[in-house]
């Protein structure tokens, strides 16, 4: 079968887009519930349980409430910027998902369909470019509110997000070097052929995770909204639906981050230890590898959802476990730790790959295993030499003292009566 005709492409594209978009919005709403449920579970309490069975309709109730609630626009705020900010924040969060493949290609009467909204040749670059627009929403929202807490949150947001954007970009370079391209479906098929990139590029994964926690403003990096310091940070003055839009954008970014982690490092929709799904859809519509089937598409889709769900769980889990960094610690972690380490990592990885090429080892499982060995060594170096059980260098940079305070026990004698 050849490629889809233009008409079929457009119709199927629109259908896919709608399906994925709606499904994904539902997922985002579900994550807001999942966060509260999991938090409750971690903290020995019930969580939302009034609206529907197990509180399942809570997101719907929240949405309705937010539509009907009174909105307050503070005096002295810049009206149009104030209204625009949540849109700017939400729009990129909702469109980045377009280039992430969610399942194996689906055979249809009109040809084999790629399960992705848009198979752009610029995949990762598209994500970086669009996602970085989100910071404007935060900054403008913070600036336009005419409130000092919002303002502080806004400047914090801008400084933090652009800092970690450099770190995030650098953490993706190793993948580009190994993969040699930026389209996500090809990354998936390469991981199917060799190894999931988590093994040969595990240090890169570490960097990516740190950067993405900061980019999505999740604890321990939630500086822009740090509720105990800046009340609600950049969205202090936002209420009702506009507040909900900021929250939706945050959760949407989190889902995207989780999906990207799954795709870039954990094989995307690939089902491990099973070659039945190792298929690639070429541009001309032909399928290389295993034969596509609707049930394979379903299975791989579920697999992708499971992986994404796992990383969302990690995001939530971390949030309810650790305290928050201080702002200067976040910045120093980004600039003084992550970026230099990433530069060194890129250099080391490049050297190793050149050496493997020089040895004549072809790209494949063996190649990946050699890189894995290098990464394990680097990981050990980071853990035991660079970090030395401080977990994150930035956390303790300001202090120059042993970790555990010596607590002396002083025995008192009651000398009071003697002293008279």
């Amino acid at each position, binding site marked *: 079968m050849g490629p889809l005709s233009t008409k079929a492409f457009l119709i199927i594209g629109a259908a896919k887009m709608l399906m994925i978009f709606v499904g994904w919005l539902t997922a985002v709403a579900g994550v807001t519930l999942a966060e509260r449920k999991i938090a409750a579970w971690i903290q020995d309490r019930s969580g939302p349980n009034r609206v529907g069975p197990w509180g399942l309709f809570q997101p719907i109730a929240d949405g309705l409430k937010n539509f009907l609630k009174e909105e307050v626009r503070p005096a002295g705020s810049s009206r149009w910027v104030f209204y625009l900010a949540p849109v700017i924040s*939400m729009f990129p969060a909702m469109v980045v998902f377009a280039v992430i493949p969610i399942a194996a290609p689906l055979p249809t009467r009109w040809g084999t369909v790629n399960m992705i909204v848009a198979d752009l040749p610029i995949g990762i670059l598209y994500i970086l470019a669009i996602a970085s627009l989100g910071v404007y929403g935060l900054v403008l929202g913070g600036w336009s509110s005419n409130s000092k807490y919002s303002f502080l949150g806004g400047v914090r947001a801008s400084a933090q997000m652009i800092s970690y954007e450099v770190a995030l970009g650098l953490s993706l370079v190793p993948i*580009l070097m190994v993969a040699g391209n930026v389209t996500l479906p090809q990354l998936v098929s390469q991981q199917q052929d060799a190894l999931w990139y988590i093994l040969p590029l595990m240090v890169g994964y570490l960097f990516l995770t740190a950067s993405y926690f900061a980019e999505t403003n999740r604890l321990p990096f939630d500086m822009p909204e740090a509720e105990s310091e800046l009340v609600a940070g950049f969205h202090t003055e936002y209420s009702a639906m506009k507040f909900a839009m900021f929250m939706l954008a945050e959760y949407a970014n989190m889902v995207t981050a989780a999906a990207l982690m799954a795709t870039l490092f954990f094989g995307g929709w690939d089902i491990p230890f099973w070659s039945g799904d190792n298929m690639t859809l070429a541009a001309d519509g032909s399928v290389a590898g295993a034969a596509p089937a609707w049930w394979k598409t379903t299975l791989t889709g579920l697999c992708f959802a499971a992986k994404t769900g796992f990383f969302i769980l990690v995001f939530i889990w971390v949030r309810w476990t650790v305290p928050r960094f201080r702002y200067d610690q976040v910045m120093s972690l980004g600039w003084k730790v992550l970026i230099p380490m990433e*530069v060194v990592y890129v250099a080391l990885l490049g050297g190793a790959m050149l050496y493997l090429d020089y040895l004549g080892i072809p790209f494949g499982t063996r190649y990946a295993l050699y890189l894995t060995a290098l990464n394990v060594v680097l990981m050990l170096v980071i853990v035991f030499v660079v970090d030395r059980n401080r977990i994150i260098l930035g956390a303790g940079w300001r202090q120059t003292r042993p970790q555990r305070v010596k607590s002396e026990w002083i025995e008192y004698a009651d000398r009071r009566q003697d002293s008279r």
Partner: protein
Amino acid sequence: MLREYVPVLMIFAASLGVAVIMVVGSQILSNRRPTPVKSEPYESGMPPIGDTRERFAVKYYVVAMLFLLFDVEVVILFTWGIVFKSLGLFGYVTILIFLLLLVVGLLYEWRKGALEWER
């Protein structure tokens, strides 16, 4: 293929539509009774003094300038990374020199105190 961009436009339209509907819809549906006290900017319940949008500490903007420099460099690294395998040793050595410059620049900023946040 250029036609792959059409679904992107579609999802742009859908997202923008949803976002605008959210803003406009809540604008129409919600009940508004602003009072002077209600629309006072929040500052822990106190009337704020001083202008919010005033000259602010320069450190945040220094970070923005650093970002501009480094992000451009990251973009170069992207293009290099994609063609890394075909460039071989020549490309590697070139980029090593480039990274060295990058690191020297970062070290300079570091020593100059552009990355310090306190006092």
